[in-house]
C-alpha cells in the first residue's frame, strides 16, 4: 500500500517522476473538454473517434516519405504533420459526404473511419515489408504510451491547449451561434463553412497532439465524456464549457495520480474510468438535466396539474354553466367530480387529500361529497380563469377550433407565464360579462355524469 505522504506528493505534483504525466493529462483533459463541448452540441461526439482513426494512414505515409528521402522515419514532427494532414482530410471528407449526399452524419463518420483506418492498416502492412524501416512502434503512435511521456509531449500539449483556449475565447460568439443555429449564422452572413472547418482543425490539433501521448481510446473518451457530464449541470454554454474543461482536467489529474501510486493500473484506462464516474454522478444528480432533478420536476408538475384539474372541475360544477358575480359554495358529490375527467378513484382521492392538506377543501366527509373552502374557491376561480384565458388565446391567435380548444388549453395552461396572463387580461375586458372575473367558457361544459 502506498504511504499517505506518497499520495500527497503525487496529488500535489511534488513527485518528479509523475509530475510530467499528471500535468500533461490535465492539460489534455482541459483542451479536450473544451472542444468536446462544441462537438456534443453539434451532435458530432464521435468525430474524435473518426479523426483519431483517420490519422493512421498519415502516420504511415509520412514515415515512408521520410525514409524514402533518407531521413529518420520516426521523427515526431514529421509523424505529427502526417497525422494532422490525413486527419483534416478525413474531417473534410465527412463534411463533404454530409453536405453533398443523402448519407447522414453517423454513416459519413463511419465510412471515413473505416476506410481511412483500412488504408492505414494496408500502408503499415507495406512498411513491414520494407527493408529499411521496422514498422515497430508506429502502431503505438496511435495507441499511446501514457506512463512514459517526455518533455516534448509536454511542450506540444501546452502549445495546443493555449491555442485552443485562445481561439475559443476569441471566437466564442461565433462558435456558439454555429452550435445552436447554423442556418441563422449563415443568414447573418458569417463564414459558417470556415468556422466549421476551423473548429474541426482545432479538434484535429488536440487529437493529434494527444494521440501519441495518451492513445486513441483516452482521446475519444476525453472528447465525449466530460462534455456530456457538464451538460447535466447547466444550460449556459460558457458555464458548460468551463465545467467540461474542469471535469476533463480533474479526470486527468485523479486518474494519472491513481495509476501512479497503485501498481499495475494503466493510466489511460484509469482516466477513462474516472471520467465515466464523473459522468454517472452528473447524470444522476446534475442540477439542470440530471435524472433525479427531472424526475422531481415531473412529479411536482404532475401534482400541480392534479390540483388545478380538481379545482377547475369543482368550479365548473358550481358555476353550472352560468357566469355570476358570486358563486355559492356548496358540497359537490364525489361521483360528479369523478365524471369530469378521466382520472381513477385513487388518483382523485389522492388529489383531494393533498388539497385538504393545503386547506383548499374541507375535510372529506362520510357522504362522500367535497366542499371548497374560501381560499379554495379563490384559487379555483384563478385556475379556471387561466384556463379560459388560454382558450381565448388559442381561438384568437392560434386559430384552434372551439370544439378542440378545451383539450389543447388543458395541455398548456399549467405553464402559463405571468406576462402572457397580463396581456390576455387586457383582452379579457371585452369578454367580461355579468361582471365576473372569470370569463364565460367559449364552449358548452358537459355536465359530469
Amino acid at each position: 500500500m502506498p504511504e499517505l505522504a506518497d499520495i500527497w506528493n503525487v496529488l500535489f505534483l511534488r513527485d518528479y517522476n509523475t509530475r510530467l504525466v499528471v500535468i500533461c493529462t490535465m492539460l489534455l483533459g482541459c483542451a479536450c473538454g473544451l472542444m468536446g463541448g462544441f462537438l456534443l452540441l453539434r451532435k458530432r461526439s464521435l468525430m474524435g473517434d473518426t479523426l483519431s482513426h483517420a490519422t493512421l494512414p498519415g502516420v504511415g505515409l509520412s514515415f515512408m516519405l521520410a525514409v524514402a528521402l533518407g531521413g529518420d522515419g520516426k521523427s515526431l514532427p514529421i509523424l505529427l504533420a502526417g497525422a494532422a494532414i490525413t486527419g483534416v482530410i478525413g474531417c473534410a471528407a465527412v463534411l463533404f459526404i454530409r453536405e453533398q449526399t443523402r448519407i447522414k452524419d453517423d454513416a459519413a463518420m463511419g465510412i471515413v473511419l473505416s476506410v481511412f483506418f483500412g488504408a492505414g492498416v494496408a500502408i503499415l502492412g507495406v512498411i513491414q515489408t520494407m527493408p529499411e524501416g521496422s514498422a515497430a512502434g508506429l502502431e503505438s503512435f496511435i495507441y499511446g504510451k501514457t506512463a512514459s511521456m517526455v518533455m516534448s509531449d509536454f511542450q506540444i500539449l501546452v502549445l495546443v491547449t493555449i491555442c485552443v483556449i485562445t481561439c475559443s475565447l476569441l471566437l466564442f460568439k461565433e462558435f456558439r451561434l454555429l452550435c445552436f443555429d447554423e442556418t441563422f449564422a449563415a443568414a447573418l452572413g458569417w463564414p459558417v463553412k470556415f468556422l466549421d472547418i476551423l473548429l474541426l482543425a482545432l479538434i484535429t490539433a488536440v487529437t493529434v497532439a494527444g494521440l501519441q501521448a495518451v492513445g486513441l481510446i483516452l482521446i475519444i473518451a476525453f472528447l465525449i465524456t466530460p462534455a456530456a457530464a457538464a451538460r447535466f449541470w447547466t444550460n449556459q454554454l460558457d458555464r458548460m464549457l468551463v465545467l467540461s474543461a474542469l471535469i476533463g482536467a480533474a479526470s486527468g489529474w485523479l486518474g494519472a495520480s491513481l495509476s501512479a501510486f497503485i501498481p499495475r493500473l494503466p493510466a489511460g484506462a484509469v482516466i477513462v474510468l474516472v471520467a465515466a464516474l464523473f459522468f454517472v454522478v452528473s447524470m444522476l444528480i446534475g442540477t439542470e438535466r440530471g435524472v433525479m432533478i427531472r424526475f422531481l420536476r415531473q412529479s411536482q408538475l404532475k401534482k400541480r396539474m392534479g390540483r388545478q384539474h380538481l379545482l377547475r372541475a369543482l368550479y365548473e360544477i358550481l358555476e353550472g354553466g352560468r357566469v355570476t358575480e358570486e358563486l355559492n359554495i356548496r358540497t359537490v358529490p364525489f361521483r360528479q367530480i369523478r365524471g369530469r375527467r378521466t382520472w381513477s378513484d385513487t388518483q382523485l382521492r389522492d388529489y383531494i387529500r393533498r388539497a385538504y392538506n393545503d386547506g383548499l377543501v374541507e375535510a372529506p366527509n362520510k357522504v362522500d361529497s367535497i366542499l371548497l373552502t374560501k381560499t379554495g374557491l379563490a384559487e379555483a376561480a384563478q385556475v379556471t380563469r387561466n384556463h379560459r384565458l388560454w382558450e381565448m388565446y388559442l381561438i384568437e391567435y392560434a386559430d384552434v377550433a372551439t370544439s378542440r380548444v378545451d383539450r389543447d388549453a388543458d395541455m398548456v395552461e399549467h405553464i402559463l407565464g405571468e406576462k402572457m396572463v397580463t396581456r390576455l387580461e387586457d383582452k379579457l375586458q371585452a369578454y367580461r360579462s355579468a361582471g365576473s372575473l372569470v370569463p364565460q367558457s367559449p364552449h358548452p361544459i358537459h355536465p359530469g355524469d
Partner: protein
Amino acid sequence: MEWYSIDTWIVVIGALAAGACALLGNFLVLRKMSMMGDAISHAVLPGLAIAFLVTGARASLSMFIGAAIVGVLTAVFTQWISRFGKVDEGASMGIVFTTLFALGLLLIVQGADHVDLDPSCVLYGAIELTPLDVVWRPTLFGCSLEVPRAALVLAGVTLFNAVFVVAFFKELRISSFDAELATAMGINSKLMHYLLMTLVAVTTVACFEAVGSIIVIAMLIVPAATAHLLTDRLWLMVVLSVLIAIGSAVLGHLSALIVPGWFGFADTSTSGMMAVMAGLIFSTVMLFAPKYGVLPRLVRKTEAVR
C-alpha cells in the same frame, strides 16, 4: 502474382464476413446507428477478459459468449443513457464503449500475473491466417476441399442473418423507418431493436474473431451506405449492399496482392485493402450515382438554372 487455393479461401471467407455484416448494416445505417460496429468491436474487451479469467483458457467458445454478451450490453447501455439522461445517441455510444474498453484493459493488466493475454492478438484475427485452420475435408466432384473453420462459422452467421432479414423484413422495414407506426401496427419495435442489436453483436464478434475488426467496421457501414445512394427500395438496397460487399472483398484481396507490387513492395494487409476497396466503390457511386450522385445532381442543377 500467383494464386493458390489459400487465396481462394481468403476471398471466400472475406466475402462471407462482408456479406454477413452488410446484411445487417442496411438497418444500422437507416436507424442512424452506423457506429455500433465500431463501438461493439472496442467494447467487448471486458467480456473477453472475464471469460478468460473465469475459464482460465483461451477457448474460443467461452470467449465468444463473453464477447457477445458484452456486445449486447453495449447496445443496451447506449439506449439507457440516451433515453434516461437525454444524451445524444452518438455521445452515449462513445461513453459506453470507451468505458467498457478501459474496464477490459484494467482487468487484463490486473490479471496479467497468471495470464498471457495481449489485447491486440486476442481481440483480432487475421484473415490471411484463416485458411490454415482446416477442420473439414470433403470431396466434391472428385476434388478434395480443405474447408477452414472460419469459412464454416461465417457461412453459418451469414445464413442466419439472411434468414433473419428475410423472415422479419416487413417488421424491420417499418420499425427502421417509423418506430411509432410500427408500434401502432402491433409490431414490437423495441424487441426488433434489441434483436437486431443482438445479431449485430454476435456477427461483429464472430467476424472480428475470424478476420479482424477492420473488415467488420467497414462492411457494416460502407456497402449499405453505397447501396443507399443507388436505390430507394429497401429490398434492392439489401441485395445491392451484399453484392458490393462481396465485390469489395474480392477486389480487396486482389489489390492487396497486386497494388504494392506497382511500387516495388511485396503484398500488404488484405483486410485493410478490403476496406479501401469498399471506400473506392463508395466514392465512385457517390460521384456518379444516377439519382443521388454528386455530379448528376450538379448537372441537373445547372440545367435547371439555365
